């Protein structure tokens, strides 16, 4: 398919690797923030082809992974109510809550439905006026415009039996938190192309400047990632630290204005807890008070929830990039994609699942 085959061309990948080897004189450490990019890097073995000593650290850009346990537990409490049709993206269904997951709840008779887009959830609400339809609105800047449009659509068309359980997160505050950590090893970042397609990259400019880190807006195909890594290494080798755009075909500096406007209308910035990382100031989105009527948390008054994580799971260190999945005692034994102890083993964007799918370290278990 156009734009896919071309950006997966092995001959061009070899040229980029050759250029990278000719450029890198030191063992640089680069983080790809996005879980989608992690999967491409691990599946294609890009991290194993890099110049000697150079390392990719896999970042926290997995929406399923960083959604706080409290939200999963609230989702379970709401989905268990008989009047509720609970809707979610498919990859949230197996995320372990304190006791069980949405798949288990569905097996016991709860009306849990997988949707492809939040607009499908609004349509289900329209078709089932006697039921309460709730959508689990999680994710980064990429999914926020979709959820904003779902709320705007429901408001405009008078769908009152629709609400959203919101736990949105924002990338730039997470990058800042990683850079502030005393044990930070990341020297450059690949910023997720799709986040920047929505938000642009102006928020990254003061970060690159203040912390002296190159940030390269990067696409998702193998050639995109190799070129993004090369652009970051060229900056590191010449002592520059600016935001550059590798994903020129899809991303503009100011992002998508229409999408940003809708997000700004429906949501406001709030402090947000990240699963495995903790609370990060101004790192999330919550519904604006003008749309409080669509807040599932308020509508169903789930109240205080007591949460408990699996003691064996090192998801927090995985998400901060300080340890690898293969460092975990439970990896590939007690914890597999079929029996996940933590969210990074569940999601199509989780680092543990990426390693497991590629068979990394499993021969030793």
């Amino acid at each position, binding site marked *: 398919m156009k734009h896919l085959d*071309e950006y997966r061309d092995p001959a061009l990948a070899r040229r980029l690797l050759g*250029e990278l080897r000719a450029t890198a004189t030191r063992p640089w450490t680069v983080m790809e923030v996005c879980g989608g990019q992690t999967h491409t890097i691990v599946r294609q073995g890009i991290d194993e082809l890099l110049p000697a000593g150079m390392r990719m650290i896999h970042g926290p850009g997995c929406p399923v992974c960083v959604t706080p346990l409290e939200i999963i537990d609230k989702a379970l409490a709401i989905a268990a109510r008989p009047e509720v049709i609970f809707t979610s993206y498919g990859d949230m269904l197996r995320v372990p809550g304190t006791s069980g997951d949405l798949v288990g709840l569905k097996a016991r008779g709860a009306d849990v439905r997988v949707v492809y887009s*939040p607009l499908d959830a609004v349509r289900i609400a329209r078709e089932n006026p006697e039921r309460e339809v709730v959508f689990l609105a999680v994710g980064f800047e990429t999914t926020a415009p979709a959820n904003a449009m779902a709320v705007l659509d429901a408001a405009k068309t008078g769908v009152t039996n629709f609400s959203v359980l919101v736990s949105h997160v924002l990338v730039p505050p997470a990058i800042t938190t990683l850079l502030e950590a005393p044990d930070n090893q990341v020297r450059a970042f690949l910023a997720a192309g799709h986040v920047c397609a929505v938000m642009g990259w102006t928020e990254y400019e003061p970060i690159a400047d203040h912390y002296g880190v190159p940030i390269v807006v990067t696409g998702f195909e193998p050639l995109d990632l190799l070129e993004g890594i090369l652009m970051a290494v060229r900056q590191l080798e010449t002592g520059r630290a600016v935001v550059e755009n590798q994903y020129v075909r899809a991303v503009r500096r100011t992002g998508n204005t229409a999408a940003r406007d809708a997000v700004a209308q429906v949501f406001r910035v709030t402090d947000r807890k990240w699963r495995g990382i903790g609370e990060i100031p101004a790192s999330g989105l919550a519904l604006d008070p003008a749309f409080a009527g669509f807040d599932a948390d308020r509508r169903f008054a789930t109240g205080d929830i007591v949460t408990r994580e699996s003691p064996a799971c090192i998801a927090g260190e995985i998400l901060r990039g300080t340890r690898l999945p293969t460092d975990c005692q439970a990896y590939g034994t007690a914890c597999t994609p079929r029996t996940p102890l933590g969210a990074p083993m569940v999601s199509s964007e989780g680092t543990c699942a990426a390693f497991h799918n590629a068979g990394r370290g499993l021969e030793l278990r």
Partner: protein
Amino acid sequence: MSVEEDFPRGGIVDFDGLRRPVCLAYTPEAAVGDHVIVHVGFAISVVDEEEAARTLRVLRAMPDAIETELGS
């Protein structure tokens, strides 16, 4: 991609043979035949064909330095 006029603006996107409805509210400039980047059922960006071709030209101009090293 083809366009259907309603609220929110929608269209049909062909994902390598799989045709799906997609919301076009955030890409008002998208026209029939454009390539778009879709996330959770929403087109978030229209692919700039000239830039896509330019990136590939730059990559193709790089020397294939490690061809012999990898034995191919």
